[in-house]
């Protein structure tokens, strides 16, 4: 009788697993960045700023929340240009996350201006039990100028990571007038799977007129890309 019950319990578990595997959308969570946003699309004189998105959006099948409102009175994004007060020098921001067993992080990130010089922009992920991963984002590979103009960075890798400890970038949004938002996909190293992802830190060492990054949204997932 006991063996019978165990088999029934395992049967129920297996059915549930089967249904879970059939689910279409991965278990994603949008991350609140309201404590770090420092400007609006139009206050930052983003070209065609009124066409830029805000609110709940889905790009490449991933949900995002971009802050802001239709009046343009609420900040939309974090701009390293604003953080650096329009000058030179390194600026950084740490986004609190505090979600367990994250496998993938999605960001909507672009740059003002853009250069292929490496070492100007990095993202560091920090786990609760000591795991850290720093990714250097290179213009023209991992991130583009938000404005297609032919003179800065108009290309991206255009693929998915493919393995743990890798990152890649695809397009998220275009307005058809030459402006865009890119989606960076970070597949965390295996060590993070047993830890809580505490935070991610963006460090920008660019300069005004050269390259300055901006972050519009962050979403994390406990599934692979």
């Amino acid at each position, binding site marked *: 009788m006991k063996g019978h019950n165990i*088999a029934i319990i395992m049967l129920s578990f297996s*059915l549930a*697993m089967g249904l879970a*595997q059939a689910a279409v959308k991965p278990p994603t969570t949008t991350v609140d960045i309201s404590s770090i946003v420092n400007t609006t699309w139009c206050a930052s004189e983003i070209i065609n700023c009124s066409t830029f998105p805000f609110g709940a959006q*889905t790009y490449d099948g991933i949900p995002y929340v971009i802050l802001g409102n239709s009046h343009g009175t609420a900040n939309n994004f974090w701009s390293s240009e604003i953080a650096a007060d329009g000058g030179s020098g390194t600026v950084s921001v740490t986004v609190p996350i505090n979600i367990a067993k994250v496998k993938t992080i999605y960001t909507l990130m672009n740059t003002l201006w853009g250069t292929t010089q490496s070492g100007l922009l990095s993202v560091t992920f920090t786990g609760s039990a000591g795991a850290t991963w720093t990714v250097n984002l290179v213009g023209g590979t991992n991130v583009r100028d938000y404005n297609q103009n032919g003179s800065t960075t108009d290309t991206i890798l255009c*693929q998915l990571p493919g*393995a743990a400890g890798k990152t890649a970038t*695809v397009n998220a949004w275009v307005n058809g007038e030459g402006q865009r938002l890119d989606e960076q996909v970070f597949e965390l190293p295996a060590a993070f799977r047993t830890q809580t992802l505490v935070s991610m830190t963006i460090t920008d060492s660019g300069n005004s007129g050269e390259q300055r990054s901006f972050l519009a949204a962050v979403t994390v997932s406990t599934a692979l890309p």
Partner: protein
Amino acid sequence: MMERKLPILLLILCLGAGLANAAIKPISLASFVNNSWCGQALLGCSTFPYGTKRYDGITYDILGTKEGTVNTAWFASDAAGQGSGVVSITIPVKIAKVKTVYTLMNTEWGSTQTGLITITFTGSAGATWTFALTGGVNVRDYNNGNYTDTCICQLPGSVAESGTINAWTNTSGQQRLDEQIYELPTAFATQTLESITITDSGNENVQRAILAAVTVSTTGP
């Protein structure tokens, strides 16, 4: 005794079904491939991949051998005898509840003219979906040069949509394979995907499709 065996059998069945749900299955193109990378004189042909490969997290089987003596892909140009005219292939799939189809497809030459390549998915209970691929949006010239060098560079996002991203580039960065991702309309979720038909209406020095691999999945992209 019989009463005890039944739940165990059901358990095995359900575990199997659970695993099958997660299936990503490469589809054999063995009966369609009509030339090798170097037989077709592709630029950088010796650098092109073959065998089991993983791009963007998806497994593909690309036919061929190291010696280049076995056909690797379906070339519309060869199917048309290097002339004009419409050519097509219908690839049998016969897998139930497919949600996503992945292809490795590029073109020789390339044109932004619409209507030159279509792909049609056919279900067992009448579902069909035809998608027209446009050069420079859904598919690129395999060679980075003077034809179509851009793609939409994004994933589908919802059912009945398609996206294209890069799958492979060689170390020179000049030759590539693109990955098309098709998120099938909802109707296919309850049917068997019977076949995929690719139709090419291009021409020499205009655009001709190259199909290197097809993989299907019962999960979303």
